[in-house]
């Protein structure tokens, strides 16, 4: 009919404008102001093209001391004297400011981590605002709730957060701690401090009493120093299982309260009566969201044997549709991995899987030349013994196993040292409920995945840590 219409269809580039202006160098934020940059310098890179965004200077021992002293002083002199309502107002104000500057924060998050702009715009920043609002509401109410009434804040809290959701994780830690009346010394990951530094500017604008929130910059060494410091009586950490274990030793030695949110190897279980088209979407979102760099990622797909072939076909088709490229493009769905180290680690695992002769399907597109891009990949028929289905690798790598019965599905799902998240897809609500009770994971999603709400507690079983974040359970972690 119309021969001219038989063309290929390619989305035109739609890059988000780059408006972000950063200082050339940043120091830590202590006692309400940025201290003069001095000491060890560390470049902050954009993982999409390896250009340098800015430089930070690590805090030294004196500055860590100063941060904790400022926090203690703020706790004793101002923050503990304020009413819950007043503390809540600060959090509300911060949420409102974040709303005003949402675009700037989204851009900064994407430039710093490589996550697609549509994710930082539609997921990260709105979730941060929601989390602040939610906890602002709690600030004058938790005193009257049965398990929390008559409890007291810890005073000064040390918090250490990872690089996968820099701002979101910072807010997850800050909001409940402040709502409960603690003051905070927080350390962002050394590679992703930008949104935390921008947040410091907002904290300044919101007129927080100096010292209530202190942001120290630095690597694991600074983290160790924070954990062993005399002042904080509570440590909250999100990150890898190995580091978490070390922190647990330190916390035990100095008798500090502790909550850990560590790795996961989430099972994602598809029964034959699942709403298949949506289940495939759920699987894709479960493992390729944020390039797979999510602690609660559904990295092990368990499929009912009767639909295994169909699922394989649908997965391959759906994976080929993922749009990889410049994370600042509004149509991009997957950006680069976060760093060279992470890229090398994931590549090694993929290489190992291929060397062991596992059948796999890789995204067909070619990747941009620069940047730490990694193709989404799925390994089929992976046994429980293979390293790919045992270790958390924090990348866009999915393994698929089939199961024959419900009992077998539960057995495979629980056969891991971790237990953070799981997904179940079925039309049978009775089965779904029964499964949810038997799976040893902190979060079980039914017919969905990676859905979050500030009211819903999040945390792990087994080696995925202890303590919960979100909801009343999350508040309890910051009270004694």
């Amino acid at each position, binding site marked *: *009919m*119309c021969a*001219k*219409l*038989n*063309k*290929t*269809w*390619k*989305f*035109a*580039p*739609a890059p988000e404008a780059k408006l972000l202006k950063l200082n050339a160098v940043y120091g830590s934020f202590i006692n309400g102001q940025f201290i003069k940059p001095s000491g060890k310098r560390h470049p902050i890179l954009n993982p999409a093209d390896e250009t340098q965004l800015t430089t930070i200077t690590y805090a030294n021992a004196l500055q860590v001391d100063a941060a904790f002293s400022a926090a203690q002083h703020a706790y004793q002199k101002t923050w503990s004297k304020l009413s819950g309502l007043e503390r809540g107002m600060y959090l509300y104000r911060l949420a409102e400011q974040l709303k005003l500057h949402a675009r700037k924060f989204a851009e900064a998050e994407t430039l710093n981590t490589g996550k697609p702009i*549509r994710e930082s715009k*539609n997921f990260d920043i709105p979730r941060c605002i929601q989390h602040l609002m939610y906890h602002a509401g709690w600030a004058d109410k938790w005193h009257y709730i049965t398990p929390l009434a008559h409890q007291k804040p810890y005073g000064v809290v040390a918090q250490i957060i990872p690089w996968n959701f820099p701002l979101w994780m910072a807010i997850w830690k800050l909001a409940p701690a402040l709502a409960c009346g603690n003051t905070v010394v927080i350390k962002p990951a050394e590679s992703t401090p930008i949104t935390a530094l921008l947040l410091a500017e907002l904290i300044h604008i919101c007129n927080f009493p100096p010292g209530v929130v202190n942001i120290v910059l630095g690597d694991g060494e600074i983290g160790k120093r924070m954990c062993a410091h005399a002042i904080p009586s509570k440590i909250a950490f999100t990150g890898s299982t190995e580091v978490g274990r070390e922190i647990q030793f330190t916390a035990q030695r100095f008798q500090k309260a502790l909550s850990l949110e560590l790795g996961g190897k989430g099972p994602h279980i598809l029964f034959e*009566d*699942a*709403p298949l*088209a*949506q*289940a495939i*979407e*759920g699987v894709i*979102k479960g493992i390729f969201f944020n390039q797979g760099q999510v602690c609660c990622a559904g990295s092990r797909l368990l499929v009912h044997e009767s639909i295994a072939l169909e699922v394989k*076909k649908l997965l391959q088709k759906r994976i080929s*549709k993922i749009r990889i490229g410049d994370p600042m493009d*509004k*149509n991009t*769905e997957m950006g680069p991995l976060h760093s060279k180290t992470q890229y090398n680690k994931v590549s090694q695992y993929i290489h190992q899987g291929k060397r062991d002769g596992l059948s796999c399907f890789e995204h067909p597109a070619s990747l941009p030349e620069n940047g730490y891009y990694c193709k989404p990949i799925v390994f089929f028929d992976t046994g429980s013994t293979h390293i790919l289905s045992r270790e958390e690798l924090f990348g866009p790598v999915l393994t698929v196993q089939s199961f024959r019965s419900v009992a077998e599905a539960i057995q495979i799902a629980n056969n891991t040292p971790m237990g953070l998240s799981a997904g179940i*897809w079925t*039309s049978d609500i009775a089965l779904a409920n029964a499964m949810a009770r038997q799976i040893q994971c902190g979060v079980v999603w039914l*017919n*969905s995945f990676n*859905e979050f709400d500030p009211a819903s507690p999040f945390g792990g079983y087994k080696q995925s840590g202890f303590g919960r974040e979100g909801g009343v359970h999350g508040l309890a972690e910051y009270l004694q």
Partner: protein
Amino acid sequence: MQRFPKVSTIEPVMLKERVHSIASRSFKGAFKIQALDLILNCIDLTSLEGKDTEQRVVQLCQKAMQWQTAAVCVYPIHIAQAKRITRGTNVRVASVSTAFPAAQVPFTLRCKELEWCLKQGADEIDMVINRKLFLEGKYQAVFKEIEKVKSICGTTTLKVILETGELDRPGQIRKAADIALYAGADFIKTSTGKSSVSARPEVVYIMLEAIYAFMLKTGKYVGIKPSGGISTTKQALVYIALILEVLGQEWLHPTLLRFGASSLANDVMLQLLKQKSGQHQHSRYFSND
């Protein structure tokens, strides 16, 4: 024996998320121009009103010929007139049939109407499914009716209107789509335009999933026709993106894609000129009928 799939569960949370993620794409530059050209070529220029007259249909056909839309869509009484005007052009004549829009007429009479439409020379037939039977749960009977209609149509293109606004929930829409597909539809179409709820991206997405699953099972390519309430280019572009994502670019062609719309073409023309000249023109320079 049931000859269409039994299970048709749809999960609304992930459905909405996925559709939103596609619908919020940015359509720019060459892609947009290409899409606008396609949309224009895929329009079934429609006039289905009680006040349609002979002269009105003549004007409709002339507009369709000048702008090269895929077809005109009219009531049966206007088929002969439309055929006469569009003779020798690429514009096809589609007629609604089988007691459009409610189908609340005995099946034998509906078949008679259909036979009359075919005799008048309609190139394409837009039938409505029997919602009475469907909502009563008599799916097999709905299937048989469509199958019979297709057998009367023979090689004439058959579009089956599901009237999704009157079906209950997402799973039922999938079921209706499956029934129409397995009964032999050449296109499945969302709405009559006569109920309060017409084409929506979520609904079209469900139908596209059904078309894709049918293609995997049988190897047959069935077309899609979003219709009713599509008056802006922006809405139509979302459907283009959905089709690209779920089905692929084979479907971006008038043989497998139609838009049932009366005023969409005006906006497409306006947007096309804007893309090509860089200037947004006043709507008074374009027809608004």
